[in-house]
């Protein structure tokens, strides 16, 4: 009985002491919450950034912009939020969870992605209504899904869908695996998966373009490093890397 009590005390002590030792320190990485479609571009940015700023390390949490927004509003220890749409960023800035300025650092374009060589001869959005094709979109509620639906509604096209993928990378990968014939993805995804998939040219129309905003999170645990990364992402040097990945950058 007596030994039992000692054990309990030890356990309680261990729990308490470990709870007290977690505090932020300077060499912890800046945690960047970034939209899934930024995965490759931000990996390149990270390499270049850490060369230029060896004192700051960055780590990423890539997911759908909506999920990231949700995690941040639930108090996740994010330093930076980079969204694939304005809506999710506005939700956070309207309640003061990110600090001004919110900066658009890149633009992405939507395009039809098909297998290399375009074996099904897909040339425009109208082809999505063909019933010999397996058509995929991103699900409604994620930026690529909402944008795709806006475009389709605008063009009066209602395709019969095989699947609504949870994020744009999952969709692009299914086209790359030839498990889908065509889907509306971002140019950056086509660049990333080329030459396995290729893009079908879309009209040069602003409706096909979507802005990517970035902001520092209000309760950022590593504020200083976060601001360094924020400035870097908006620099000309970063713009060049983003363009290599298929993004356009604001002039």
């Amino acid at each position, binding site marked *: *009985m007596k030994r*039992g*009590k000692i*054990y*309990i005390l030890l*356990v309680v002590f261990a729990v308490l002491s470990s709870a007290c030792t977690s505090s932020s320190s300077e060499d912890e990485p800046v945690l960047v919450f970034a939209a899934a479609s930024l995965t490759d571009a931000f990996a390149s940015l990270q390499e270049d950034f850490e060369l230029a700023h060896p004192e700051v390390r960055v780590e990423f949490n890539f997911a*759908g912009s*909506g*999920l990231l927004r*949700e995690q941040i509003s639930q108090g996740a220890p994010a330093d930076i939020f980079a969204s694939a749409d304005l809506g999710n960023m506005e939700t956070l800035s309207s309640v003061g969870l990110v600090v001004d300025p919110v900066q658009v650092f890149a633009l992405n374009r939507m395009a039809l992605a098909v297998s290399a060589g375009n074996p099904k001869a897909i040339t425009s959005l109208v082809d999505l209504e063909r019933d010999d094709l*397996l058509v*995929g979109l991103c*699900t*409604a*509620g*994620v930026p690529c899904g909402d944008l795709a639906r806006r475009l389709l509604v605008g063009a009066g096209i209602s395709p019969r*869908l*095989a*699947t*609504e*993928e*949870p994020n744009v990378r*999952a969709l692009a990968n*299914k086209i790359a*695996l*030839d*498990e889908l014939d065509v889907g509306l993805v971002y140019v950056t995804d086509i660049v990333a998966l080329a030459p396995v998939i290729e893009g079908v040219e879309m009209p040069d129309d602003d409706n096909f373009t979507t802005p990517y905003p970035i902001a520092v999170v209000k309760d950022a645990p590593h504020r200083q490093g976060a601001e360094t990364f924020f400035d870097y992402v908006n620099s000309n040097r970063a713009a060049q890397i983003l363009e290599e990945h298929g993004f356009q950058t604001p002039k």
Partner: protein
Amino acid sequence: MRPRTDTSRNSKPGSSRWSRNPKRPIAPIGTVPLLWLFGLIATLFFLLPFLALLWQTPWSELDTLLRRPMVAQALRLSVISSFAAALISTIFGVPLAWLLARSVFPGRTLVRALVTMPLVLPPVVGGVALLFAFGRRGVVGEALYESTGVVLPYSIWAVILANVFVAMPFLVVTIEAALANMDGRLELAASTLGASSWRVFWRVTLPSIVPSLVAGMALAWARALGEFGATITFAGNLSGRTQTLPLAVFVAMESDRDLAVALSLILMVIALAVLVALRGHWWAR
């Protein structure tokens, strides 16, 4: 801190079904305090997230949220595919468990390891593997597609297949353990009395492992009901066709948290109802 239900159970030992079992002695509350402490911590660990979920539930809007057509469709699909998966897992899993427990054949250890793979593998990887095997360009799927034009992914069959892949191991492991532990003398007696080996299996072996069979089926069913990763990877996500409740929760999480919480609530209610019913009727001693 003591759970009230346990106190009341203890207060009238005559009516408790636990105390009637001589094989399972009852430890009065508070004995072995270390076990009680850790047991309580474990209970809280499971209880807290569910309480938090209930706390976040938008009760006043629940009715409107659950009336959306996608909810009924996801519910229907989840119920059908999970029960189908449990049934298929039983039809193929029981013979497999029997082979593993009762036969000696080359590569048996390998087969056993293979069966437990889906338990270890992240389900998304399982989904990709299924795609490589049964997708339109998969090893088997391509032949199927070229000869019949059938595409397995994006159909309810793909949902069921993904469910079976992740769920059957639970059943096989449970049944194999039961077969390994059962008293072989009964089977021996039946067989010396002239029963055919099929008859022995059907009339002696199977009835004596019914509790484990039910437990295995329940585990497999529950795993199938909650299955997400393999399903969304292999079967895709389309409301009314392949979007089960877990997929609907995940998708709603991106855009409508209230809906996501409401959907999770249905999932929990179904799971609780079925598992509690099974426990009450089958496992009670």
